[in-house]
């Protein structure tokens, strides 16, 4: 058995499972388009970003295999997104409340 197979750990994801994720992503795309036609004011932004975050979670955890990676990579991804969230949070603590 080669190193690669040892390191890869888990079995490859089945076609059926990947197709399920694909179908879910298409369904969420249809959902976000139909919700955008309803005027919810500010909540349009919240709903659209919420659905987009859900879609990215599906891509990151399953298509990008993160769910099956070791703790090092999982922690690194978490840190990267926390850094991004801090940047966005700090910017809006200024932009959002400036008079």
């Amino acid at each position, binding site marked *: 058995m080669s190193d690669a197979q040892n390191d890869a750990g888990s079995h490859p994801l089945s076609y059926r499972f990947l197709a399920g994720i694909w179908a879910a992503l298409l369904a969420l795309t249809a959902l976000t388009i139909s919700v955008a036609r309803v005027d919810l004011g500010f909540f349009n932004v919240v709903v659209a970003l919420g659905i987009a975050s859900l879609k990215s979670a599906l891509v990151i955890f399953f*298509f990008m295999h993160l769910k099956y990676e070791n703790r090092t990579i999982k922690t690194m991804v978490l840190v990267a997104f926390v850094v991004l969230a801090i940047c966005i949070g700090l910017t809006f603590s200024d932009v959002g409340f400036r008079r």
Partner: protein
Amino acid sequence: MTEHRDYAGGKLGMWLFLFTEILLFGGLFLLYAAYLHRYPADFNAGGKQLDVVLGAANTVILITSSFTVAASITALRLGETTRCLWLLAATVALALGFLVNKFFEWSAKFGHGIYPGSEHLMRLPPGENLFFGLYYAMTGLHGLHVLIGATLLTVTAALVRRGRVTQGNFGLLENAGLYWHLVDLVWIFLFPLFYLIA
């Protein structure tokens, strides 16, 4: 002499590179958010001029290509090399389809006098001008990533064909796939921000 490979290190390095990409696009999204906050009405007027059907078509194209590239990794690991190559060919074809759509979309906008630095844009309210500036900068940078990703996947497919990337040595295909999924991720946010909510 045996060839030395570091599968885990390669994957770690790819993720590190992806973080720089996430922060690069993250900075642009932040800029977009700050100006959306300042000019909501102008951004709304700008967003209404974008073609939701073309944007939605490109979303479906990228999501499908993300699926085909993920499936190509499964195919290679199961030893189904021919199927892997077909799935990679489909991914590259979808990437080109995305760029063709983008070409028609941008051409139509140019035809209406909406392009960076155009006189028409200069006469629009400042927020709308900013909206289209960000639209071209962000979808342009994303389009460049689509082109790079498609090239990377083509090179990888050639290496699979020559037996250099194989069932036991699939690291390169996995990393190329990670890059392609990132391209999809960025579009997952670009689409609602520009075409739906603005």
